[in-house]
């Protein structure tokens, strides 16, 4: 009852196929046979054949970072993410989800978000002068809580470019984490509907999503789940590229050698790999990691860091080694949770793209 026909077809094709194990960032750091798409498919296929859906199977299902590397890698085009999300929905419905998931969901229900309340005077000062309504809405998303310096820099960049924009005083949770945790459950859909209503009430023409998590859920889930936004959604790097190319922003190239970590939501789910690179190349010398762009290996960003910080720390440490091997001194990220994850690892200086760009404006 939880799985669509498409899920079942994917499950039965993935269950005996080991060909994407080499790109699973969780499997890379745990070495566990259970941490790959094949294992999840095998387990769910057995459940579909009468095996009980057990709590430890549900644990395996939540050990996935939903980074989509397996989907990108699949030559045939199978996407293991939908059945993984449906397996999460089934686990919650059957009361076998891990305790840490239930605790996280309780926290989200209580606070309206998985993140602590934002208490950053610098950001508050930057936001104080902004109008309540404008044609452009900067949606801060989890950046405000997870990486406030990127939010501050983003606001300053837009001001520097002369953009008239608003930031919601009571910004709703975008719902990306809930969608990851619950799958397409009705409770998650209601959160998206409520958020869409609040955002639409601003009456903006363009939403600039600072966090790739927000951009992804706005562009992919909202319409699909019956909660359309009445505005065009753009990612922050794409919007800045427009401003730069229109002459509203100018950057000086200092020749600094940096590398760039593609967030999986931006690179794989929204296929946006060039905009950040264009901007970075305008400011410095970009040295790519061996696996980059849509093939980038996740550093543990996204929702998994909220409930399995141990896995995120391991993925970040592994990815940091890739970054170090480029010879760069700084790693640029375009995602608040990537920034936080990589900063948990020893190695290069980790800098949000917005901060890097602001430093290079002229």
């Amino acid at each position, binding site marked *: 009852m939880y799985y669509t026909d498409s899920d079942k077809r994917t499950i039965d094709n993935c269950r*005996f*196929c*080991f060909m994407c194990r*080499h790109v699973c960032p969780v499997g890379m750091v745990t*070495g566990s046979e259970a941490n790959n798409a094949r294992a999840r498919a095998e387990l769910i*296929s057995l459940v579909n*054949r009468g095996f009980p859906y057990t709590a430890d*199977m549900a*644990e395996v299902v939540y050990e996935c970072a939903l980074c989509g590397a397996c989907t990108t890698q699949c030559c045939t085009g199978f996407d293991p993410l939908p059945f993984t999300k449906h397996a999460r929905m089934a686990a919650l419905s059957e009361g076998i989800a891990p305790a840490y998931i239930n605790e996280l969901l309780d926290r989200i229900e209580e606070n309206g978000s998985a993140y602590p309340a934002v208490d950053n005077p610098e950001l508050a000062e930057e936001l104080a002068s902004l109008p309540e309504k404008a044609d452009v809405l900067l949606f801060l998303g989890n950046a405000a809580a997870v990486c406030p310096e990127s939010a501050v820099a983003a606001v300053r960049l837009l001001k520097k470019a002369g953009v008239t924009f608003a930031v919601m005083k009571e910004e709703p949770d975008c719902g990306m984490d809930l969608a990851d945790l619950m799958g397409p459950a009705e409770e998650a859909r209601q959160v998206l509907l409520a958020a869409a209503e609040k955002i639409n009430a601003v009456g903006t023409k363009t939403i600039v999503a600072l966090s790739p998590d927000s951009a992804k859920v706005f562009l992919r889930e909202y319409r699909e789940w019956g909660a359309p936004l009445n505005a065009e959604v753009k990612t922050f790097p794409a919007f800045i590229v427009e401003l730069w190319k229109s002459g509203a922003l100018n950057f000086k190239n200092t020749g600094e050698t940096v590398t760039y970590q593609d967030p999986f939501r931006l690179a794989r789910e929204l296929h946006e790999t060039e905009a950040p690179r264009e901007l970075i190349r305008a400011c410095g010398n970009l040295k790519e990691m061996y696996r980059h762009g849509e093939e980038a290996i996740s550093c543990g960003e996204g929702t998994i860091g909220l409930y399995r910080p141990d896995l995120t720390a391991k993925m970040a440490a592994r990815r940091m080694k890739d970054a170090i091997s480029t010879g760069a001194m700084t790693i640029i990220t375009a995602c608040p949770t990537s920034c936080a994850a990589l900063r948990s690892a020893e190695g290069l200086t980790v800098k949000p793209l917005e901060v890097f760009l602001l430093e290079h404006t002229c």
Partner: protein
Amino acid sequence: MQLKGFMFDMIQNELEDAVGRENCSTREADKLVHGVDYYWLSRMWADRGMTPPEADIIVCPKNAKEVSSVLKIANYYKMPVTTWGGGGGTQGGALPLAGGIVLDTKRMNEITEFNTDSMYMESGTGAIHTHLEWYANERGYATMHYPSSQNCSTLGGFLAHRGIGVVSTKYGKIDDMCLSMEVVLPNGDIINTSPVPKHAAGPDLNQIFIGSEGTLGVITKAQMRIYVQPELRWFRAFLFKDLTSAFAAGKELLTKIKPSCMRLYDEAETVSLIKKIVGVERKGAFMNLALEGMKDIVAVEQKILFDTFAKYGAEDLGSDYGEKWWKEKITFFYPGHMMDIPQMFGTMDSVATYSNIEKIYWAMKEAVETNFPMAKFIAHFSHWYEWGAMIYDRFIVDNPPQDPHEALRLHNQIWYTGVRAALANGGVVNDHHGVGVKLGKLMKEQYGPAMQVMEGLKRQLDPNGIMNPYKLGL
């Protein structure tokens, strides 16, 4: 022994002490995923909703020292130990058929040395092979070991069953690429084989453990050759009038030069391949090959190739097929591109001298098609030596029995029949997929009294018989 209750907890605690609690699992989910590998029978078993073979506990050691501790514990309690790499094997070699411990090697994945002076890299054997290739490529080198399973299998898995890749004719099998190894013996002793593979210091220890499929110990680290990337990799396809002329041409070519890749297809496969290339069905024997290395040398080899093949009436079909095949050489391993359940299938690869190889093809084809009319038989020959070639022959049954016991019986019958036909004509039990549980019983039929050499090693090194029971016929 009783592996439940109090005593099980005691043993579990010892294993946790050896490898860390987080690296020991009794989760049902972990047991289930270690109970299905790439073996058709294990897949069929799961497909029919049957309980896969299960270990009692999964341990994931980080290095030889931890493996040593695990094996000492296992020996004390006489618990079976089945070593698991990527589970990409087709012979059931990694299935924990006797329960006990699954020793998953994938945490032993550190690359500890990349030596361009002596052209090798040293790695833990739990490394996924594609990760080794990435590492080498990033530094401008290559492993030149490209089996279809490179994404899913570990270095140790390839060593354990004597794997091979598509450019083997020039660069060799995995056993040709290994310089030295660290091995943990069943009693827990950590040993190193000779520092180099070529010597006169007695028998080659590498070749005792390579291919031993976890029955004689656990290979924990290996030094593997690396290669410079070729300036040019050049493909060419040809159509011969039949297998006989293709073999004669291939054999002569191998006396002069070494292509990296040589793939000859039987008539059944040729008909469909040729249609894709020239648009019409044509009979014959299709061969795709690659020459590679320095451009100037490849140019000389191209002339030798054309001159040699012209003598045997080969029709030149150009380079397009080969270039496309190279780009997509592992695509066929993905779902939707190859055989899968509900079909029953198997690859009964063997290897033999040129005097015998074509005989083996016809004998296996006849044995399978005569005894099992529901089975299709196709073959190609994809690894060539100066003395002979390997046959990659496959049977396919579109509608096998639904009953798992009947399906298992039919599968084994076809295998026994096909492999016995190979053995009767100078072939071997297997070329590069190994033996596992699938072909263990046929080992004695191939080796006869020579099997006592392997049995003697097994008795001496593993007197309690804990290492990978029911595999390799040991």
